[in-house]
């Protein structure tokens, strides 16, 4: 630590927090953590809980790995990482079961599947193994926020169009139904999540040409 103490919220650190929200978004650009992103987005509430859970696991895990990084032998790092992730996920799972049992039932196996969410492994490998604790924490929060944003956008549209509700409250007024509006049942079905994410990617890449693939 010979150089002068870096400001906690220096521009570099802020960038760690904001880059994953758009240009380095884990879901639409890095293609990580897709499975859970699609499966829990029928309703806004479980999607939100899932996003918070992932954030807790990535942020805390990143800090733990970053503190341990000098003591982990490269050969066994995957197992060490998996153990850290699994331990944190067990904690999250037990907390959810204790306080929001209904939602944890809705999320079913997907809480357990946070273990295999590639965002977490990806961030451990790409960032926490070579950075100090505070930047790792910000990186974890940033990336899981980028993941959470996509989750919430997808869940918002699927819940609004699929069941006419937002966060469980009816927002489509009754007279719309009276004049013939119908909820689009297709939006509740799993494949529509993929198509919604496809459209998000389309919109994002139209706005940000750098991301276009050849």
């Amino acid at each position, binding site marked *: 630590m010979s150089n002068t103490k870096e400001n906690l919220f220096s521009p570099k650190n802020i960038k760690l927090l904001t880059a994953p929200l758009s240009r380095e978004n884990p879901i639409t650009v890095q293609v990580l953590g897709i499975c*859970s992103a699609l499966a829990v987005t029928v309703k806004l509430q479980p999607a939100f809980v899932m996003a918070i859970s992932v954030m807790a696991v990535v942020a805390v895990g990143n800090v733990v790995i970053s503190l341990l990084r000098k003591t982990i032998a490269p050969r066994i790092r995957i197992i060490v990482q998996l*153990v850290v992730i699994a331990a944190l996920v*067990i904690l999250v799972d037990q907390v959810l079961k204790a306080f929001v049992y209904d939602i944890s039932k809705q999320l079913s*196996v997907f809480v357990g599947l946070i273990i295999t969410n590639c965002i977490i*492994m990806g961030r451990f490998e790409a960032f926490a193994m070579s950075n100090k604790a505070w930047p790792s924490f910000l990186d974890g929060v940033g990336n899981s926020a980028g993941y959470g944003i996509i989750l919430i956008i997808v869940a918002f549209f699927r819940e609004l169009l699929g069941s006419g509700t937002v966060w469980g409250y009816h927002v489509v007024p009754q007279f719309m139904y009276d004049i013939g509006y119908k909820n689009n049942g297709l939006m509740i079905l799993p494949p529509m999540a993929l198509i919604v994410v496809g*459209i998000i990617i389309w919109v994002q890449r139209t706005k940000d040409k750098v991301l276009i693939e050849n």
Partner: protein
Amino acid sequence: MENLISIFVRSIFIDNMIFAYFLGMCSYLAVSKTVKTSVGLGIAVVFVLGITVPVDYLLNKYLLSAGSLSWISPALADVDLNFLSFIIFIAVIASMVQLVEMIIEKFAPALYTSLGIFLPLIAVNCAILGGSLFMQEREYANIAEATSFGLGSGVGWFLAIVGIAAIREKIRYSQVPAPLRGLGITFIITGLMGIAFMSFMGIKL
């Protein structure tokens, strides 16, 4: 026997890992550029699922689920180690993947090099852990049913990845709008394939 076949077919078509649950999406999207590598990865996934699901079934039955320790002594009958299942399952999976890696390296070196990084990544493929967790949640009656479910989900995953790889090989020659190229169009095609697979849902087995 009839029951086993029905579980097998169900897990391939109706409860397809990719199209119904989106499990193992990351490697599905990343490795599906050519048919050849996706066939290799698909076979590896079938193999790993076919082994880990029955092994985890035994562990779940005799070690983890509530009251399962009573075979050691009746005093342990009310021990519930269920909360440990994630960590035990992932340990089994990680060691199986290591084993598969060594086998492929020994007997099919060409495939080994073409799969590269994605082989160890099977360990964090959610389809594998998902298989074990679904097995736990659905409470299959015996090990034969669990095996048939594991193999079936593997075959379903295999079908999905080979299918999308074939489509992606062809789509390279078509005029896709620039922002949709690559990832975007793959998502949308997978969605459409998912809708197609949903037509199997009405079938009662």
